[in-house]
């Protein structure tokens, strides 16, 4: 999962640094991801995981790191499975 997340960030995050140099817990906004780029990352993740982020998840904290994105995706996938 984390590699697919990293791929979405790599392709759509317009990061000024190589995402592979960042840890899973690194703050993506502090590393240079803009709020608009986070929209593109969100849409790419929806494509990659076949899910849709609900309004309640449109929080800065959800998209601030690979780990936080993974946690949100796990929650959404658990909801679908349940």
């Amino acid at each position, binding site marked *: 999962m984390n590699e697919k997340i990293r791929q979405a960030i790599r392709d*759509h995050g*317009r990061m000024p640094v190589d995402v592979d140099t960042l840890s899973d817990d690194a703050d993506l906004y502090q590393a240079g991801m*803009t*709020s*608009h*780029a986070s*929209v*593109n990352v*969100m*849409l790419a993740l929806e494509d990659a995981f076949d899910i849709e982020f609900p*309004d*309640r*998840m*449109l*929080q*800065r*904290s959800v998209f601030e790191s690979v780990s936080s994105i993974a946690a949100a995706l796990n929650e959404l996938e658990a909801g679908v499975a349940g």
Partner: protein
Amino acid sequence: VWWFATYSEAMAFRIGIDLIDVETVADALEAQGERYLRRVYRESEIADCRRDGDFDIKGLASRFAAKEAMIKALAPGDDPVPWLDIEVRRSPAGAVELLIHGRAATLARDAGITSFALCITHEQGIAAALVVAEARTDADTDT
């Protein structure tokens, strides 16, 4: 002086500002098309920016900047504020104004925001927006 002193005790200003690279909006539109538009912009905003089958990219970019500037003025912390809750309207006279809906409207009410004003601009590939909101200082103390 008396008026200002009295007024300043009761009201405070909140400011939000945002800049965006217009090219990033063009890229998003090319990559995601309608999905991007429908997640970020309200129907009226899409209509305002539609140009003979194409889009006014600077217009979309300045509207995104306006939404982000309003979110900064709302200072929601980690509360979610959907972009669709914030709408930029252009009046027949050409002025822009903000309308807020849903979660954004609730946050504004809780913060005691009574009015707000928007200014947008763009120049050489950058769009910018500034929002100034006026709020009662006695609001949001018990919630």
